[in-house]
């Protein structure tokens, strides 16, 4: 009974269907991976079953004769009911309840000691509470959404993405099965994946997988469609052809996939940039888009405070919520062991990347910049000063941060080429004369690697010295770093004056502002600020709580209000010391914004207005590390490795081919040894026939075995035109003769062939196979040469004419 069920199942679910399923699953899984990577709170484990059920449902719909609309309706209803149930864990609760119910029935019927009614009630209550939980979460989120607040809610996120993936899966497998149009299923998946990958430059390999699987799927499905059509029309199709096409499709797809994987130009950038441009328009450096407010934060920019568009982030919006994953993104090592733990000055653990000078009221942006390239070891600028120390760090970045130059304090030299963005002199153009003037106004640097060694300046100047600084600034400092937009309300300016009222020096004033702000409590749970409000004002008077962006912005505004040149700096702070390896592990959660204030005669000194920095818990870093951070190779080694490992790939593929060929031969022989002699004779003859086709023998259905035998022998004699080749090939003639004999016996003789012949026949086949392959190779080569030769001849003839 079970056996018949299994066989009927096997008949219904053929191998090809399983392959299609697998391919669709690979494609959708890569989307899932990207979702998990980008969308906070989603997880592949939760979403995967939805995709699988969706695929199965879509396939079943495809098999049925349901109309498009009915399918859509049904899958919507099922999806809308099923997704929340699945996400809320109601499914497992129901399952537990059913199990308990059966046991309860059993015990009550047979009067055995079984389950208590209370337990059943409890399980029922669990279901109820889970449903309530999901519904509550979701309705809460919806209400908030309509009332203008976007709050983050994991359950709602999962439900939304689960529904999306559900529809994607149903659609993909339905259209593949029903219309034989996997492309229309692939397109939405690919667009989704590309958009998702835009937000993280990691895991671009997902696109490659999708490409490969998609190509194979399209090829196979189209082939099947063609074959069905041929069948309908009664055109006989050769299995050989099918096999050939399949091999070609799979081979080509994998080839394209490999090429896509190893050619860096076909990277996520090349794919995502046009999409980005299409979605957001061309980002123009240094020009702030006034409408780009933080007020109605869309789903996407609520995740990333820093927009990673085309190179460096030119803008920084406030109030769009930081990404606080515990994922390690950077490892910092201080090579000279003088710096360990407590000995590292606090400033040595502020890894800065960008600084912003223009306050817009809702965020920050940078003035126009110009890029200058520096050679390895070339000093980015002459920063000789007794008030600064140079410290050396070895920094390794995860792929997410790749390309940006991070350093503790301002960078001095790098062990590789670096491109530095200098803010242009106000009103001036970038040229050599002016470079001296804006030399200190660094926006950010980019380098082309994930590991580098950087020497940078950290201030060692003490409070006493800083108090000596007089508030006299160069013109460009004043015009750039004291500017405030008119939108800053007067009460902010008043507050600033109030804070610094009794402070005698610039330094004391700055410290006072810092101290004042540190009294505000820290929190991350905030809705986006209203778009029509000045952020600093909103923070200082309304919120009175917030996170680093608010603190830093407010401090800069307050400082500028009282005539202290200030700017906002973005980077990472702290990190967890890994004592064993003596390096700092910096996680996504360590992302930070702080303040630098300019002191005449000393330069930019960092301040930390954010209260309770230690709220960010460094103890729970998520391990394992991203693979690129796993080992710590030497810099040189790393640079060398960045070249495409053509040799390794080549050798690997070659070895794979050899091993694969050997293995397939071996399994083939093993299989041949199992069948009886008559079947063996016929099988081998069939192969001989295929080899014959490779040798260019036509397909004559009316040829008898002996006639074919004669043809192939003649062909081989023809190919063996030199004594050496003849020596190699002539054995084939008798071997083919022997095989033909066996095949004739197996076909037409009353008695079956002696089983003892099997061993010898297989030995014979092994030898013959080698010879035939050799012959095919020669004939291909000959044909090729003939063609080339003929072409050359033609050219000669033309030239003579």
């Amino acid at each position, binding site marked *: 009974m079970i056996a018949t069920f299994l066989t009927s199942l096997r008949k219904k679910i053929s191998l090809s269907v399983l392959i299609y399923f697998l391919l669709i699953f690979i494609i959708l899984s890569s989307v899932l991976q990207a979702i998990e990577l980008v969308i906070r709170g989603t997880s592949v484990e939760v979403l995967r079953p939805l995709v699988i059920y969706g695929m199965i449902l879509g396939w079943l719909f495809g098999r049925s004769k349901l109309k498009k609309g009915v399918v859509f309706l049904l899958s919507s209803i099922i999806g809308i009911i099923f997704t929340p149930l699945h996400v809320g864990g109601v499914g497992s609760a129901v399952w537990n309840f059913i199990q308990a119910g059966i046991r309860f029935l059993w015990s009550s019927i047979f009067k055995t000691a079984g389950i208590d009614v209370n337990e059943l009630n409890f399980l029922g209550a669990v279901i109820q509470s889970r449903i309530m939980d999901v519904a509550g979460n979701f309705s809460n989120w919806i209400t908030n959404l309509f009332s203008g607040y976007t709050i983050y809610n994991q359950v709602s996120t999962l439900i939304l993405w689960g529904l999306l993936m559900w529809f994607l899966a149903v659609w993909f497998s339905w259209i593949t099965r029903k219309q034989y149009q996997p492309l229309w299923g692939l397109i939405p998946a690919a667009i989704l994946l590309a958009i998702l990958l835009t937000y993280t430059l990691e895991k671009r390999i997902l696109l490659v997988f999708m490409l490969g699987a998609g190509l194979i799927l399209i090829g196979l499905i189209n082939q099947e469609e063609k074959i069905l059509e041929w069948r309908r029309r009664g055109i006989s199709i050769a*299995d050989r052809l099918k096999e050939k096409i399949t091999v070609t499709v799979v081979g080509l797809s994998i080839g394209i996939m490999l090429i896509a994987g190893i050619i860096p130009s076909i990277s996520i950038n090349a794919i995502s940039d046009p999409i980005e441009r299409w979605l957001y328009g061309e980002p123009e450096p240094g020009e702030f888009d006034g409408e780009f407010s933080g007020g109605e934060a869309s789903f996407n920019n609520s995740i990333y405070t820093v927009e990673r568009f085309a190179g460096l982030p030119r803008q920084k919006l406030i109030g769009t919520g930081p990404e606080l994953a515990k994922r390690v993104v950077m490892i910092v090592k201080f090579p000279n062991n003088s710096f360990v733990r407590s000995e590292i000055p606090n400033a040595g653990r502020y890894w800065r990347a960008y600084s912003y000078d223009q306050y817009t009221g809702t965020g920050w942006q940078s003035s126009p910049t110009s890029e200058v390239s520096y050679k390895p070891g070339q000093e980015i600028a002459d920063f000789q000063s007794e008030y600064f120390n140079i410290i050396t760090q070895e920094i390794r970045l995860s792929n997410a941060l790749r390309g940006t130059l991070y350093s503790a304090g301002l960078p001095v030299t790098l062990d590789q080429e670096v491109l530095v963005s200098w803010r242009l002199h106000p009103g001036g153009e970038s040229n050599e004369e002016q470079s001296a003037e804006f030399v200190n106004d660094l926006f950010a640097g980019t380098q082309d690697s994930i590991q580098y060694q950087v020497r940078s300046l950290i201030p060692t100047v003490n409070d006493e010295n800083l108090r000596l600084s007089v508030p006299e600034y160069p013109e460009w400092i004043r015009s750039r770093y004291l500017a405030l937009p008119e939108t800053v309300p007067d009460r902010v300016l008043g507050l600033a004056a109030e804070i610094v009222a009794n402070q005698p020096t610039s330094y004391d004033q700055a410290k006072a502002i810092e101290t004042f702000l540190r009294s505000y409590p820290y929190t991350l749970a905030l809705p986006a600020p209203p778009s029509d409000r000045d952020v600093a004002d909103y923070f200082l008077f309304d919120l009175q709580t917030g996170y680093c962006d608010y603190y830093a912005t407010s401090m800069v505004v307050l400082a500028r209000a009282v005539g202290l040149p200030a700017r906002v700096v973005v980077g990472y702070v702290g990190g967890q010391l890994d004592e064993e390896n003596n390096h700092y592990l910096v996680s996504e959660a360590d992302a930070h914004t702080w303040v630098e204030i300019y002191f005449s005669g000393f330069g930019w000194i960092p301040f930390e207005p954010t209260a309770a920095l230690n709220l960010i818990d460094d103890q729970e870093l998520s391990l394992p590390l991203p693979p690129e951070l796993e080992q710590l190779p030497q810099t040189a080694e790393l640079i060398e490795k960045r070249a495409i490992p053509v040799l390794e790939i080549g050798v690997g593929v070659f070895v794979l081919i050899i091993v694969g060929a050997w293995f397939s031969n071996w399994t083939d022989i093993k299989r041949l040894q199992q069948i009886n002699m008559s079947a063996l004779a*016929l099988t081998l003859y069939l192969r001989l026939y295929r080899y014959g086709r490779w040798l260019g023998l036509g397909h004559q*259905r009316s040829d008898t*075995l*002996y006639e074919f035998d004669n043809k192939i022998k003649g062909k081989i004699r023809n190919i063996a035109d030199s004594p050496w080749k003849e020596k190699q090939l002539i054995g084939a003639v008798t071997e083919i003769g022997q095989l033909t004999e066996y095949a*004739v016996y197996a*076909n*037409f*003789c*009353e008695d079956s062939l002696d089983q003892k012949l099997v061993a010898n026949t297989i030995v014979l086949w092994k030898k013959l196979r080698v010879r035939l392959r050799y012959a095919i190779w020669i004939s291909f080569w000959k044909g090729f040469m003939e063609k080339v030769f003929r072409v050359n001849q033609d050219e000669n003839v033309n030239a003579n004419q």
Partner: protein
Amino acid sequence: MNKVKELTTNLVQNIETVIVGKRRAIQLVVLGLICEGHVLIEDVPGVGKTMLARSLAQSLNCSFSRIQCTPDMLPSDITGVDIYDQTSGLFKFLPGPILNQVVLADEINRATPKTQSALLEAMQERQVTISGTAHQIPKPFILLATQNPIEYEGTFPLPEAQLDRFMVKVKLGYPGLTEEMDVISDQMLVHPIESLQEVTSSDQILEVQDRIKEVFIAESIKKYIVEIVQETRTAESVYLGASPRGSLALARASQAWAAMYGRNFVIPDDVKLLTEATLGHRIILSSSARLQELRTGDLIREILRKIPVPGGDYHSE
């Protein structure tokens, strides 16, 4: 089957000493003999038809007679007559030339239909009935009829029903250059038939005739044979196709051919090889096909190219 092979090979080689370079024709004649069939030899005069029949008879150590058919011939000239013996006062049977083991009916299409039918009846029944007495023809019995294709003047073409009774039709054809030179040198002093040895006996032939019936024909080959024969009936250029007797003849001939090569089973090659010889004279082309100068041989080759040969599943590709 090796015995069949040995015997037929000897026979063929023996006859080949007389008829040079005509191995295939000789083989077909021997095949007719061991199939208990009759052979129609169609060719121009002087290529050795009579010599073939004579050397066959001589190799078998069988009685041989020759009937030269003419329009004024009577059936009794073939079968024999009862004549009155005056000494005994009784009718005495005087056997005609047909009552021999190897009979050569030369230019059979010159005889009148009446005579032809007597001859053909004798070859089918293997006996002659004169005045109510049946006279058995001694076994083995083979009739080799020759007909001359170009002489239409004063001939009576054999009706289809009678052509159907011939197992195979053989064409001798002219010998090649070297063969013809050999013929001249061979016959300079004495004709080689004078020194032809007998290589077998009638009993052995009879045994062989039984043995070939044991040759195995696979179902796929039976199907192949029938497909070929049926194709001759449905082909466009055919007026009359081969009869089931044609299928039988092709099957039996294939068995014999397999046995002659020492095989105890038939292969498609046998069938292909014998199709023209066994079916060619049973097919009448339509007049339009004849006008287009299509020959039976071409038609049969066309049919053979069309019908898929059985042989493993490699054709399923």
